[in-house]
């Protein structure tokens, strides 16, 4: 995925660490020599209430800020984002750009036929990945869900080095 700019949106629930994830992504990209900006959605999020964060990565200076209205990548941190509509946008993929990517923390397929048709029309790839289960299995705690999601992201886009990712995690 080589674009002039990659805009990333991460709908999650309060307490899942999506803000941290966005900052790690941006820091890593910055370390790697890209331009990068990250920010959370601007709310007073409580545990279990909707929360969202964003990262922008590019090859020229980035002025744009605020919530990502037209994302290239969407990472859904919690199934309730979809099943209970705990999302800042309805549907959660609103604004997704052509050839985009969606990663959902779930084994199960949560999309309707309608959703799928629409996404297919934009050539958006959808990846189901149970990050929570992965976190429990590997790290022994569901609190590592955000790290697992990060892994999936970096794996999928593959432009940032391991060293940079470590730098991003350290700087938190």
């Amino acid at each position, binding site marked *: 995925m080589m674009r002039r700019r990659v805009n990333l949106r991460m709908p999650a*629930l309060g*307490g*899942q660490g999506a803000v941290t994830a966005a900052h790690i992504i941006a820091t890593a990209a910055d370390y790697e020599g890209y331009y990068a900006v990250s920010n959370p959605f601007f709310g007073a999020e409580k*545990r*279990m209430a909707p929360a969202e964060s964003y990262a922008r990565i590019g090859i020229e200076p980035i002025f744009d800020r605020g919530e990502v209205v037209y994302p290239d990548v969407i990472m859904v941190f919690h*199934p309730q984002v*979809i*099943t*209970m509509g705990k999302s800042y946008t309805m549907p959660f993929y609103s604004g997704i750009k052509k050839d985009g990517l969606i990663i959902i923390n*779930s*084994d*199960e*397929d*949560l*999309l*309707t036929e309608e959703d799928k048709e629409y996404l297919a029309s934009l050539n958006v790839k959808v990846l189901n990945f149970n990050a*929570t289960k992965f976190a429990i299995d590997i790290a022994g705690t*569901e609190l590592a*869900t955000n790290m697992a999601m990060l892994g999936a992201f970096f794996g999928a886009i593959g432009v940032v080095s391991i060293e940079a990712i470590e730098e991003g995690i350290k700087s938190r």
Partner: protein
Amino acid sequence: MYYVAQVINDECSKYNCKQCTLFCPEPNTLMYSDNEHHAYVVSERCKGCALCVYVCSNLLKRNAINMVMPEVHANK
């Protein structure tokens, strides 16, 4: 965050207690059924805090409620 409460109906039915229903922080979530003689959890509403478990297990030593990982159902 990732768990919800579930009453072990048979255990609960041994008592006529309702204590946990008073301490759940969520409204309309942990209720008591007189017909079935046990408490029950409206799991979409449960935030998984586990206070009910503290009440039932730690305070009352009844161990009639516990936390489980819920199944995710597509909202199709």
